[in-house]
């Protein structure tokens, strides 16, 4: 194990190795493909149950079907619901599959085998779409929370994930402000910081995390990160071929501000629409320059403190 600049910023091939593991399994992660998320929240529930997380209270947020609101100390998966005006697509898959029929057909509202609206032609459809996305801790290559933790409670696992040790954490709260995604938080009444562990206990037994296991559409995919990245690239290509040009990956790039995420996403709009920062950067990137500025300030402070004792008295 050698500590270099790559340990704190930029692409890093072997995160566990860099953290000091000599032999370790492959780095694993999540690929959350939001294009197939149906917003069922099975991931939220499975996570709560497996990890025995306290409830967040009965809180209706009044903005969408999302009443979780955000990731928190007690919600380690969060399904975002975005209700969006969207112009009808030039060539949508639905249209190819079900060409518009005669517009004068009378809709009796009976159940049918066709897609809703397919029978009337798309000019009568409302310009509306739902985006759904299950958010989670990103398990960054360069994790802001992990870098700033002063007790060693946060650590890098052999799987390349980032986990809090609850028997060590003293609730200093530094990780909460260190995370550029706003993921980790302190639990009220408990005083310690909590976040997704990628089901560290299940991984140790060769199981996949509870959320991925429960996901009925495989929107949440778990596996070795390299495989997931490849699969994600192919998925984006497929979607682009089908005319869904707004499909893009978020967090898969090892050259981004956090060295790439262990949990990355396929999104259908800009990240901020999902409550994700467009270009997060680990604060540690600037650690060197910050300390050198502080050094200059400290030197000036010392010089001032010495110099005030010299010179002629003015009194």
């Amino acid at each position, binding site marked *: 194990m050698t500590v270099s600049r790559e340990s704190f910023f930029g692409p890093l091939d072997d995160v566990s190795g860099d953290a000091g593991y000599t032999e370790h399994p492959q780095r694993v992660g999540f690929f959350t493909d939001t294009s197939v998320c149906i917003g069922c929240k099975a991931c939220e529930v499975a996570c709560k149950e497996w990890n025995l997380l306290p409830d967040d209270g009965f809180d209706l947020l009044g903005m969408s079907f999302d009443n979780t609101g955000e990731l928190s100390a007690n919600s380690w998966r969060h399904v975002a619901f975005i209700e969006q*005006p969207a112009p009808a697509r030039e060539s949508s898959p639905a249209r190819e599959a079900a060409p518009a029929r005669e517009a004068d057909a009378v809709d009796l509202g009976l159940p049918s085998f066709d897609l809703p609206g397919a029978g009337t032609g798309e000019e009568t459809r409302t310009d509306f779409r739902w985006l759904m996305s299950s958010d989670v801790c990103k398990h960054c290559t360069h994790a802001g929370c992990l870098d700033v933790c002063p007790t060693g409670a946060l650590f890098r696992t052999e799987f390349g994930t980032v986990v809090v040790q609850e028997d060590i954490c003293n609730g200093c709260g530094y990780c909460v402000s260190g995370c550029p995604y706003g993921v980790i938080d302190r639990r009220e009444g408990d005083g310690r910081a909590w976040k997704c562990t990628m089901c560290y206990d299940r991984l140790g037994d060769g199981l996949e995390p509870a959320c991925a296991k429960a996901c009925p559409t495989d929107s949440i995919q778990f596996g070795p990160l390299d495989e997931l990245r490849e699969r994600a690239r192919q998925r984006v290509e497929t979607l682009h071929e089908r005319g869904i040009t707004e499909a893009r990956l978020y967090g898969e790039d090892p050259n981004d501000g956090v060295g790439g995420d262990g949990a990355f996403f396929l999104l259908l709009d800009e990240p901020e629409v999902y409550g994700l920062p467009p270009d997060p950067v680990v604060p540690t990137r600037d650690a060197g320059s910050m300390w050198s500025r502080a050094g200059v300030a400290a030197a000036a402070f010392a010089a001032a403190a010495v110099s005030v004792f010299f010179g002629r008295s003015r009194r």
Partner: protein
Amino acid sequence: MSRSLGRMSADAAHQRTASEEEFRSYYGRRVLKEPVWEWFVPAYLFAGGLSAACAELAAGADLTRRPRLRKAARLGAFGGLGTSMYFLIADLGRPERFHHMLRVAKPSSPMSVGTWILVAYGPGVGVAAVAELLPSRLRRSRAGTLLGALARPAGLASAAVAPGVASYTAVLLSHTAVPAWNEARDRLPFVFTGSAAAAGGGFGMVCVPVDEAEPARRLAAVGAVTELVTSRQLDERLGVVSEAYRTGTAHRLRRWSEYLTAGGALGSLVAGRSRAAAVVSGLALLAGSALQRFGIFEAGVESTKDPKYVVVPQRRRVDRGEQA
């Protein structure tokens, strides 16, 4: 300005470049978590800075034979450190686990670095202060003599670490994703050391008769000017994030800080002739320093509540094709 999605978002997407205020978000909700730190933390920033500047004055006063300044400054350094420790521990979610900070020494964590800076700083401050407080009948005892002999090296040792105490707290705040603190990273160390010097100098002006307080007045003036100049830069030079410093509670706290610090600095020019002027100016400087810390803290908290401070600068970076 469209902060929410819903029906506005398609328009917002087209208008985004028109004004820096246009941006998209998830129903206007915050992206980051608010700092969980309470008022203890800005109070610590003030008390720690005060302690550091007092330690410097105490060492200088010791070497230049100013016994009253030395005594006041040593006690000020000790009192500042003691309250700092209280604030730091009280702000933990699990205060009884404060010693977990001592399990590791972690250069990537400014809080860990700070812990060890305080470990290096504290004992010297303690020895020097106890030596000042020792009743005269105990001074001739063997322990008393030893303490008296140790006071100067102990004070000098803490004075050597004190610049670290005064400046590391700037990195502590800037080494976060909190926009107002992170974007201020190049300037915050100077605001903080200036604020510390102003507070320490002010403390000396309040506690020490004018004929011995000249170094305190000078330190106060230098610190106040540094603080005033660099603090203004936070208002103006941080792009979108400067708005967090220019608005709301942060703005009010820092404006009052500016008035008090400027007034105290002017007062320090005449404080050599009047003890009353010295006390008033010193108190103004202390209050100005404290309000500065609370103001900067508040700006950081505000900058996490509004997604604008996260999204707008980052989106601009992406749209320009700049890499992190």
